[in-house]
């Protein structure tokens, strides 16, 4: 018996950290930028309450040294990967969101935790929930745009003090941008599916035509930002959180 408990402890110590998600109920939302302009169903899932912190990411690196700044392959992360860390393990702000991480690193971290990156639809759906005090979506978008308009600071806030939205999720807006699994699942060029007739190639101004809500400039900025990324890119104010199948 004692041996069994010992081995359970050993194996739990070797495995990834526990899940830290909150259940997001199933529902529907209309994507901002989509060819079909109709609501999509989002199944119930769990989402981390806060963005992954630098301290969390250090744990991952210590367990998976191939993701250290000095070891990571350029295929998986660009030259700026974790550039705000003084050394491979010198975390500047353990409780602040980790940034300068690539999509590949974020994806590997979430897999190590027993999860995955949220899909674009899952993230956007959770992010429609308002914070306490926000009167409507226009008010929410105005506050998001205020944040987008402020220059990024070198010092990020601790995730502990972040306000939670109606689902209980903190920091989806106002702290860092976040990777999603299918960040590159965006309409390309003219936005027409490739099975449409050849004349569709003559179509232009696809971007505006595909917008579900032209007044939602905050969502437009998120979509534009994501479409500029590649999987190995790292950015000063781009972090992530993990999702889990419910």
């Amino acid at each position, binding site marked *: 018996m004692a041996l069994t408990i010992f081995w359970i402890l050993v194996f739990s110590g070797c495995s990834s950290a526990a899940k830290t998600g909150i259940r997001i109920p199933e529902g529907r939302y209309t994507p901002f930028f989509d060819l079909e302009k109709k609501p999509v169903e989002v199944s119930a899932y769990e989402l981390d309450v806060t963005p992954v912190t630098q301290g969390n990411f250090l744990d991952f690196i210590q367990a998976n040294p191939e993701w250290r700044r000095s070891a990571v392959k*350029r*295929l998986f992360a660009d030259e700026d990967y974790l550039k705000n860390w003084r050394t491979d393990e010198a975390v500047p702000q353990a409780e602040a969101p980790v940034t300068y991480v690539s999509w590949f690193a974020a994806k590997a971290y979430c897999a190590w935790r027993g999860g995955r990156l949220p899909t674009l639809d899952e993230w956007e759906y959770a992010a429609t929930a308002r914070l306490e005090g926000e009167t409507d979506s226009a008010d929410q978008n105005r506050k998001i745009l205020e944040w987008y308009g402020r220059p990024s600071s070198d010092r990020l806030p601790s995730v502990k003090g972040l306000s939670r939205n109606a689902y209980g999720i903190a920091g989806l807006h106002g702290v860092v941008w976040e990777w999603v699994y299918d960040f*590159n699942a965006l*309409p390309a060029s003219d936005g027409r599916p490739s*099975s449409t007739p*050849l004349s569709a*190639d003559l179509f232009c101004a696809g971007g505006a035509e595909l917008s579900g809500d032209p007044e939602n400039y905050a969502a437009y900025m998120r979509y534009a930002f994501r479409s500029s990324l590649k*999987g190995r890119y790292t950015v000063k104010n781009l972090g992530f959180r993990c999702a889990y199948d419910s």
Partner: protein
Amino acid sequence: MALFFFLGFAFPLCAEDLPSSSLFHFDQVWRTESGSSFQLKELRGKKTVMAFVYTRCKSVCPLIIQNLYKLEKALPEPQLQGLRFLLVSLDPARDTPEAIRGFVEGYQLDLQRWTVLTGNPDALRSLSAAAGFNFKPTSDGEFVHQNTIFLLDEEGQMVSHYPNLSSAADELTADLTQVALQSHSDETLLEAP
């Protein structure tokens, strides 16, 4: 000395020898038209022209393949010898090896020179994320996707991309010919006394 050459030829170069940015570091297993497993590192040693298509695609994908045909016809044999054409399916759910086989036969692709792969959604997402290629399935089973053609060097590094279908074949022909000329010029310089 003999041992050095023996070891060099007996053991293929391993992943650690690849450039850090090589796509050949991906270890996912893909499937060919015969159902055989295939890893991207098997493309090592030749330049690769890569594009994303799916077998049921009726308008843009045929244009992409036309561009590659045009390139295949335009390049002189020495350049063609060092080149592979790689088509990656955007639709792993429907593009089974059987579907890929029909596609290969329909387009009469020479498998000595062409490789058509189908994989799983995660392998596809990773490869597209690395390449900077956008695509999205639609509810009617089609795909919205970019038309970009990519050029990889012999070590799997992306050296160029060609987003404009109206000029991609000409640009690729010019670039590959230029690389060949440059390479020939370098060899000439090396051989000079």
